[in-house]
């Protein structure tokens, strides 16, 4: 089958799965998840075929797989949409295909397929366990199946459609369409357990915050279309004259070039979608959704879409910049935001107790790394980190879901009601859940950048090396510090969760979840180790192992980015930083007992600890300065003042005046004059006339005779008078 046909078909199976499940198979759980996983598998196979073919082509990058059709007429021509697979798309499809499939399979076990229905389970709330009584009269509680099982698969199917559309599209408009579909699905999925108020609020927060970014991104898209007349990537970026024009024309705002302004506007969309500071507030709250959602949306795919966008429009951002030059204003801002976010989120992560929150802030931080890399001009390094991060972060999230499941199972078993997501209620789980432990450890080490055998090491090191070699000292130091903190909080997490002794009954009775949950962990762990080896810097091995990734992905750009000469200093620094952080994390937390306070809380001054724990009070700030005015505007101003008092008041006054006019007319004009004088009056007059006139017809002949004679006499008199006189 032709490659472009396959590419067109890749997004479709999950969409079909969504439609089928919603319309037809909502009640049948096995059929629904089979349709969903089948669809994910089809898209996966399609992606793999395309990638395989792409890899086989030499100079893939100059030659690409592309196909487009006319969509709507615009003046003399048509607006065209279509698909494009270039090297960047290929690697993105790789990790998207794998992670989506693994997460779909994981969801079957996560939502307790095969378990009985719960005792008090309701749609809209998380399942709470069922009581099984065996023939001896012993009853024990087991996990129960998710009440809205099929709906979950429908939503993640729609989500997968959105992501695939975004990845394979060849123009900004369909990319935006996929972007927004994922925004919608993240709302639906974060608020999956809709009866829980915190989940509802989190869903709205996510949608609204990303919306802020999306609106500005749309402005950027509109500006680009207005300036160039097209939104097709290859038409813009592979057209040197157009790029030159974009780079040299000055935009009316801030003195940036047009390309710089558009890049900035589009970047703000990424700030929203990839939860960079200042629009980061939605991602930790988004942990209210089920863990597969967190894995997919907030690790592997949706937040990666933001970085993908920046990678796509990289030529716009770097217009007018050559490697070696100082960064242009747009790149400076991007680098600043990325770096700041990286350190900012890392400092918060060290104080969080919820296992998923730590990973959420970790995601924000790692995305910051990628954005910082792009801001510095490290295209390939950012793409590389994007790919490796997707694998190990998805692994970590799925692992945390597995941990939570295990602890919940223990809680059902023992009746212990402690929070199953609080790490201070865990401990010693390595003995109870070995597969989860080892895969989580691999993921954690990859995140920390454990040297040589983890993928995260190679990708993070490349970013640090780029910062070092290009003398962006502030960025380098900050990112290195961030790496230290990353390793610290990761080891903190692993130590508290798996090492030591169980701190609660529930943790003591946890056990390994089903195979549908553990096999995806294992597969993702393999990637978390191995995929880094595709991007080993050539200088390290003296050219023995080629840096395939750099060669392949670098072909996306018009000018192939050159490889930096290998410098051992940043690599050594990153190794030192990673190992130090890991060691410190293990040291501080290995002996934490049940009920004990967090050692960090003891060590740090209360002021600093509380600020970090409360996320630098950003939520409070936003509520006070942004949300409160908006609430006032809508509840008080628009509703009470404008609508009820002004508009309703006016209408009521109009009504009142109309009524008064009507009443007055009735009382003072209609009743007395029209009714009384004209109506009744004319009747009375007619009656009076009639009463008087009837006397002229008495029915008596003699009276008639007298009358007529009298009249004749009168007439004769008049006649005689005029005739004779």
């Amino acid at each position: 089958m032709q490659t472009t046909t396959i590419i067109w078909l890749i997004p479709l199976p999950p969409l079909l799965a969504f439609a089928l499940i919603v319309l037809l198979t909502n009640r049948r759980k096995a059929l629904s998840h089979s349709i969903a996983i089948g669809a994910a598998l089809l898209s996966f196979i399609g992606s793999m075929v395309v990638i395989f073919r792409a890899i086989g082509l030499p100079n893939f990058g100059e030659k690409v797989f592309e196909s487009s059709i006319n969509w709507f007429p615009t003046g003399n021509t048509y607006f065209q949409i279509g698909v494009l697979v270039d090297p960047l798309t290929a690697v993105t499809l790789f990790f998207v295909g794998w992670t989506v499939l693994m997460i779909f399979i994981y969801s079957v076990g996560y939502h307790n397929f095969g378990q009985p229905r719960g005792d008090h389970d309701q749609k809209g709330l998380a399942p709470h366990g069922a009581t099984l009584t065996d023939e001896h009269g012993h009853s024990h509680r087991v996990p129960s199946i998710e009440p809205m099982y099929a709906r979950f698969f429908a939503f993640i199917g729609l989500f997968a459609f959105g992501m695939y559309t975004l990845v394979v599209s060849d123009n900004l408009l369909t990319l935006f369409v996929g972007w927004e579909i994922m925004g919608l699905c993240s709302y639906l999925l974060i608020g999956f357990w809709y009866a829980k108020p915190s989940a509802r609020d989190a869903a709205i927060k996510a949608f609204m915050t990303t919306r802020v970014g999306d609106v500005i991104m749309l402005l950027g898209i509109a500006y680009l279309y207005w300036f160039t007349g097209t939104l097709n990537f290859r038409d813009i970026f592979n057209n040197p004259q157009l790029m030159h024009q974009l780079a040299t024309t000055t935009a009316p705002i801030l003195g940036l070039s047009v390309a710089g302004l558009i890049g900035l506007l589009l970047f703000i969309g990424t700030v929203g979608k990839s939860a960079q500071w200042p629009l980061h507030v939605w991602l930790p709250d988004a942990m209210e959704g089920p863990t597969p959602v967190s894995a997919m949306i907030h690790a592997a795919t949706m937040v990666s879409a933001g970085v993908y966008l920046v990678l796509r429009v990289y030529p716009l951002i770097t217009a007018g910049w050559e490697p070696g030059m100082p960064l242009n204003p747009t790149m400076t801002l991007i680098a600043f935001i990325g770096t700041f976010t990286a350190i900012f989120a890392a400092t918060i992560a060290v104080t969080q107790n919820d296992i998923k929150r730590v990973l959420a802030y970790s995601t924000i931080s790692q995305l910051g790394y990628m954005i910082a890399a792009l801001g510095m001009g490290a295209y390939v390094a950012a793409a590389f980190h994007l790919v490796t991060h997707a694998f190990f972060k998805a692994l970590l999230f799925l692992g945390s879901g597995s941990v939570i499941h295990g602890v919940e199972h223990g809680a059902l078993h023992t009746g212990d009601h402690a929070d199953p997501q609080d790490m201070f209620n865990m401990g010693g789980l390595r003995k109870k859940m070995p597969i989860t432990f080892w895969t989580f450890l691999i993921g954690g080490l990859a995140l920390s950048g454990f040297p040589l055998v983890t993928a995260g090491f190679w990708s993070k090191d490349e970013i640090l090396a780029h910062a070092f070699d290009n003398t962006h000292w502030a960025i380098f130091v900050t990112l290195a510090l961030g790496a230290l903190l990353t390793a610290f909080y990761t080891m903190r997490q692993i130590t508290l969760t798996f090492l030591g002794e169980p701190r609660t009954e529930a943790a003591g009775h946890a056990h390994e979840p089903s195979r549908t949950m553990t096999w995806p962990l294992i597969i993702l762990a393999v990637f978390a180790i191995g995929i880094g080896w595709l991007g080993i810097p050539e200088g390290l091995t003296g050219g023995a192992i080629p840096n395939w990734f750099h060669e392949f992905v670098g072909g996306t750009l018009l000018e192939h980015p050159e490889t930096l000469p290998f410098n051992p200093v940043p690599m050594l620094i990153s190794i030192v930083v990673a190992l130090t952080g890991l060691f410190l994390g293990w040291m501080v937390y290995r002996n934490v007992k049940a009920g004990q306070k967090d050692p960090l809380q003891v060590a740090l001054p209360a002021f600093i600890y509380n600020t970090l724990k409360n996320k630098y009070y950003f939520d409070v700030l936003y509520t006070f300065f942004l949300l409160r005015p908006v609430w006032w505007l809508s509840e008080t101003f628009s509703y009470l003042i404008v609508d009820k008092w002004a508009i309703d008041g006016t209408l009521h006054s109009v009504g009142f005046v109309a009524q008064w006019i009507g009443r007055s007319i009735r009382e003072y004009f209609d009743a007395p004059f029209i009714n009384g004088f004209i109506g009744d009056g004319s009747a009375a007059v007619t009656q009076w006339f009639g009463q008087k006139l009837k006397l002229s017809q008495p029915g008596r002949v003699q009276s008639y005779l007298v009358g007529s004679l009298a009249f004749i006499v009168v007439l004769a008199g008049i006649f005689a008078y005029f005739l004779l006189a």
Partner: protein
Amino acid sequence: MSFVQIVFLVTALSILIAAVRMVTTGSMVHAALWLVATLFGVAVLFVLLEAPFLAVVQVVIYIGAIAIMFIFAVMLTRREMLDKGPQLNTKKGIAAALGAVTFVGLALMLTTWEGFDSYARPMANVDTVARLGDALLSPDAYLLPFEVASVLLLAALVGSVYVSINKK
């Protein structure tokens, strides 16, 4: 004053007096009798006017038939004692006034006619009755009105019988 004038005056006076008494008397029978007197007076007047046939016809028809008929009618309609008592209704004032006005008007109109004061020309000695007969029955005179009058009388005859027949 010649004899004829005196006769005329006496006759005229008696006619008028009888007529006035007729319309003012309380009793209906008296009224019918006063009518007879009036009619007699008119017959005398016809004689004065040298129309003897008409005088006789007047007596025979008017008095002998019509006045008798009136008396019959009075007899037949006297169940209530309403042939006594005041016979004039409420309109008598206006009626009298109108009557007077009529007379005065007619008189005034007549006086303006130039032949008002003329005298009778002597009539040749002709047989007026025979000539009346001729006039009544000759086709180029007044035969048709005569026949029509007889048809009228027939209709009146039939009609009056029909109207007043007692169907019990």
